[in-house]
């Protein structure tokens, strides 16, 4: 996280009647940071973004933008600009007029205005398309116009509301790379709302995962994927094998648990950790389990049998039953070694690293009314 805070959200709540869209949310986003709000639909991420932009007025709390308390400011007086989910390109204007829309109020000289529009179009690689009408543009081009129209205002913070969700997969991946490059180039704070965990992981410096109007965890992509704090966070970010484990002992910040067939495992205590009846939930990601072929040996092994197999091109997802485990394990294998040819019912051995286990705290109950 960058040193200087750009956005400070202090105890923000938003009620619609008795429904809590946002429930006491606090977070700080640094200058020049690429920050993502990630969560399922209805988790409050868009409400939070629109509160920063000024389109929603929180019921309680304050939002500081670059140190300025901003709740009393209307959207047109905030140093933020937004890229809307459907891009909201003005249909009666051409590309250059769209980009120049906000500049008109700054009363620049015609020359300065043209230069800034031209620079913004260069930045999003739309040079030469200034005269195109909005309906002549492809989805990816509209996205770029929306970006240029916002960036030309030189905002302190760029807000992006699911900007890639309307694009097809290939274009979306291209635009992800471009968004990241663009953010590095302009150096301002980007706040991205998305429900796509891969997008958040690939783009962000930090991610806030939200459920039920609250923030469940804020961390770097790697930390949030590898060290999710709760079961729901772990689940939302990707596949996870959950196991019930018995607490053997605690020492300071470490817990020793008996993870059924995996044996004794030492784990870091997450924030808000509490065992119920001496039991906790631990998890291990499917890609941290590895198939052992022929004479391969590993320090930690487990025997099992393939119950199901799903082919995904570059990888195969296997479901492996292990005696003594309530649930079968899922694991992901690259297809380089022939995992896609293993028959259902085959007896296999798998290797695991006890370090890869995470201890998961209970999720707080969701109460929205």
């Amino acid at each position, binding site marked *: 996280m960058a040193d200087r805070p750009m956005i400070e959200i202090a105890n923000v709540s938003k009620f619609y009647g008795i429904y809590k869209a946002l429930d006491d949310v606090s977070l700080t986003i640094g200058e020049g940071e690429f920050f993502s709000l990630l969560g399922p639909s209805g988790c409050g991420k868009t409400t939070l973004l629109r509160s920063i932009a*000024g*389109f929603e007025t929180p019921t309680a709390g304050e939002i500081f933008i670059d140190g300025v308390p901003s709740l009393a400011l209307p*959207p047109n007086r905030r140093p933020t600009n*937004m890229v*809307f989910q459907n891009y909201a390109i003005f*249909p*009666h204007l051409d590309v250059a007029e769209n980009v120049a829309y906000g500049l008109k109020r700054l009363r620049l000289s015609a020359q300065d205005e043209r230069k800034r529009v031209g620079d913004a179009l260069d930045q999003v690689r739309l040079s030469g398309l200034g005269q195109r009408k909005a*309906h002549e543009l492809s*989805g990816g081009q509209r996205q770029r116009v929306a970006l240029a129209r916002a960036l030309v205002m030189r905002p302190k913070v760029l807000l992006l509301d699911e900007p890639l969700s309307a694009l097809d997969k290939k274009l979306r991946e291209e635009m992800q790379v471009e968004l990241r490059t663009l953010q590095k180039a302009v150096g301002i704070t980007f706040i991205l709302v998305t429900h796509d965990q891969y997008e958040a992981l690939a783009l962000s410096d930090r991610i806030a995962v939200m459920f039920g109007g609250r923030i469940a965890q804020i961390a770097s992509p790697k930390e949030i994927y590898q060290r999710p704090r709760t079961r729901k966070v772990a689940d939302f970010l990707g596949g996870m094998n959950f196991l019930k484990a018995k607490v053997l002992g605690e020492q300071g910040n470490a817990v020793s648990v008996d993870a059924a067939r995996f044996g004794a495992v030492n784990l870091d205590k997450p924030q808000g950790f509490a065992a119920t009846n001496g039991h906790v939930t631990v998890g291990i990601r499917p890609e941290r389990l590895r198939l052992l072929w022929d004479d391969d040996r590993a320090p930690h092994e487990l025997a099992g049998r393939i119950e199901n197999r799903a082919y995904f091109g570059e990888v195969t997802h296997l479901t492996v039953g292990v005696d003594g485990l309530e649930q079968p394990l899922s694991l992901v294998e690259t297809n380089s070694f022939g995992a896609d040819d293993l028959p259902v019912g085959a007896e296999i051995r798998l290797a695991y690293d006890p370090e890869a286990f995470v201890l998961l705290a209970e999720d707080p109950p969701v109460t929205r009314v």
Partner: protein
Amino acid sequence: MSLLTQRLRVLPFLPAYVALYFLFLYLPILLLPVFSFNDAATTTFPLAGFTTKWYASLAGNSVMLQAAWNSLVVGVAVSLLSTVLGICAARAITRYRFRGQRAAAGLIMAPLFLPEIIVAVSLLMIVLAMGVELSLITVILGQTVFCVPYAMSVLVSGFEGFDRSLEEASYDLGETAIGTFRRVTLPVVAPAIVSSLLVTFTISLDEFILAFFLSGTEPTLPVYIWGQLRFAAKLPGVLALGSVMLVASILMLTLAEILRRRAERRTQMAFTLP
């Protein structure tokens, strides 16, 4: 063999039926301009010769010109009034969700399906009972009731796709509420509004029953034409007048449809991606 040609083979009389149908529909209307240039007082074949004297006689007919002026006044007033009311209704229907919305939309559209003469009689009864003198104003009010549904359906198709985020984007880019209305809202929906004005003006221009019941001593053009039909000698003049109105109506409705489609394309484009 395509499905269409298959069907045509099974039902060989279909093209003939369609041709006959259009003939029946449009031949009488086409006869109107033909006889309006015919140098005879009767509408019979063979044609007697080409003349423009019926058109020339229109220009000197002060009663007819007064009726045309009345129609213009009524048409402009009705189109403005019903379009303003239509804008309110269309905005409510497309932008908000409220209890009784479908019922309200249905009731606004209902005059389209009620027998016009019944509405005209009941309006006349109320106007007389209230002691209001029949005038162009009563015609304007009556026709507005009938034109609001047309205005609303044209405007709804223009507003339907109007995306709220366009206005939000404008605020976000620093524009004020008034500036946003002037620079975004109005230009985007303008074609639909103009289209509504043209459609309702055209309907008012052609409307007879309400105008006949509610106009008192100031006839509109259709009422004037009705009066002229009692005199056989006036018929060619009426045909000439009818031809002028026909051309004017077609032109205005064509323009209205072009604008309506443009409005639809504009607003829907903001939503759909290619």
